[in-house]
């Protein structure tokens, strides 16, 4: 089943007097359960494509479908609902809410979804155990290392079993051991839970985990092949 369908996506940015092409007529289909890496040099359009798929950025033209949802037609509230119920985000810098503990950060999305407290606690405890953070549930982000924070962010992204996880350079701030642990975790979640992963990365070690590798340059897909 197709999880993501992009059709003739275009996006440009203004930088001073210059117009920069972010996406140039991008066509892309990703099926449910795929593990896809987007690679390419800086400015190639990887992050722009991820942001457009996640409804964080609006394309100038073209269409995006996430499951049954026509993303470009949704208003801000409906986009927020789509992200809440269908998409998990993992960002380059860990992006945790500093006033919440690790457990509360993981529970955050579920709480906004309206999941009852007991169920939330169980799920958060389970996922934190799964990402190796048992015993650190009550620590605030400032009390965790970079790798631990990124694992909390991953736990938050996957705890409510989204259809899709979008990760933008998730290992950029991690050392090699932490990167390997994180990618092992992604691979395991992909195989065990069937979650679709789309990861934008420069990191060749990350690309080795992908079953499909898409290369981009100047806003275009220049190669799309099984890995």
């Amino acid at each position: 089943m197709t999880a993501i369908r992009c059709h003739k996506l275009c996006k440009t940015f203004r930088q001073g007097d210059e117009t920069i092409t972010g996406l140039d007529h991008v066509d892309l289909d990703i099926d449910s359960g795929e593990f896809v890496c987007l690679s390419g040099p800086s400015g190639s359009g990887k992050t722009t494509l991820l942001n457009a798929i996640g409804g964080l950025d609006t394309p100038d033209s073209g269409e995006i479908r996430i499951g049954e949802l026509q993303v470009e037609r949704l208003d801000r509230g409906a986009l927020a609902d789509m992200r809440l119920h269908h998409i998990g985000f993992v960002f380059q810098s860990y992006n945790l809410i500093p006033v919440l503990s690790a457990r509360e950060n993981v529970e955050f999305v579920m709480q906004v979804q309206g999941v009852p407290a007991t169920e939330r606690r169980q799920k958060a405890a389970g996922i934190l155990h799964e990402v190796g953070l048992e015993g650190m549930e009550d620590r605030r982000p400032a009390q965790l290392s970079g790798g631990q924070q990124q694992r909390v962010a991953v736990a938050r992204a996957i705890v409510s079993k989204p259809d899709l996880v979008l990760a933008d350079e998730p290992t950029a701030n991690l050392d090699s051991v932490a990167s390997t642990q994180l990618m092992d975790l992604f691979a395991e979640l992909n195989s065990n839970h069937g979650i679709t992963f789309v990861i934008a990365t420069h990191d060749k070690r990350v690309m080795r985990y992908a079953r499909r590798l898409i290369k981009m340059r100047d806003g275009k897909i220049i190669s799309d092949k099984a890995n």
Partner: protein
Amino acid sequence: MRPGTWQFSILLKLSWRNLWRNRRRTGIMLGAISVGVWAMIFMTALMRGMVDDMLAQGIRNLPGDIQIQHPAYLDDPSVVNSIAEPGGALLEALQNDGAQSWAPRIRVPAVIASERESRGIELIGVEPGVEQQISGIPAEVTEGRFLESSRDNGLVIGARLARHLETRLGKRVVIMSQDPDNNISERGYRIVGIYHAEIAALEESRVYAGLEDLQQLLGIDGRISQIIVFGEDYRDVQSRYLGLAAVLPDGLDMRPWYRIDTYLAAMFKMMDGFVLVWVIIIFLALSFGLVNTLVMAIFERVREIGLTQALGMRPSQIVVQILLESLLLLLIGLAIGNSLAVATVKPLESGLDVSVVAEGMAMMGAGSVLYPTLTLHDLLLANVVVVVLGILTSILPAWRAARLDPIRALNMH
């Protein structure tokens, strides 16, 4: 709990914790709100106390809570427009609460003359025992004595009037007025008491004589000018008024104080307006600090707001979160401000000596002791204004936060 409750609880948790991220800034803002709220309530209590005093004195000295008189009396307060002393159902209604709460009075224009000067005055015939018990007339006899009975043939005059007439206690003066046939009625009286009143104009114009003595002088046995009714609280005369209206004989006119003394009535109405304006002015000063605090708090966590948007928080939830933060700040400030106000007003309720500005107070018709009055109405008004206007002024920063572009917000350093 329903899903909406979970959502609200995370918004409340975020708001509460964000509030204490910058303790210094929050502390300063709380201090400003607390002092502002205290000033609102404290000054309102002082103003309320002053106006209450002015009204209570004005009502006690002049009209009473309700007046019953001849329909033409207020236009022509002469002896021609007198009424019979109350009887029958009206008397029963006047006495139905057991305690004496009404007084018969004669009030006619007259001339008082000493051997040196003469002046126009208001001659008031009273039943001394009744008046002293329910109206406190006259305010303070400083020399001699007050009238001892309704038949007392002495006069009690104000200290200022005595000075104008160049007379003093024990001297004789002549009173001249008109009887119902428009003939001059005059008689010599001895000054048995000199009184002091808070309001200078009253001290200069009012002269008290015994009711029966005056009836005799004016040739109106059994007749009076007015029936003055007093109540517990001048703000609540309606029930007494309606009770008396039901038994009021034809040919009598009855009015509550606010229809007799429009100046006092206007002051009473204006007081609420003053309080509201005062509360709003203080709040406007506070609102700059409040908005600045919120804008700074939002500016410092633009990335987090972008993150919560990316994670699926709706714009409306972001607005609610920021408004909750503002509300919590306001509620804590209100709690401290209210406590401070109660703690400072309550000990002063027994009286605050303002004799250093006594003349100014007297000009306004108030006494030299101020009794700050803390009313539930004023407390609620200050609290409601602060909360409602506080939330309204927070809407713009909250709305702007909700409209942030998530990508720009997430990339902001």
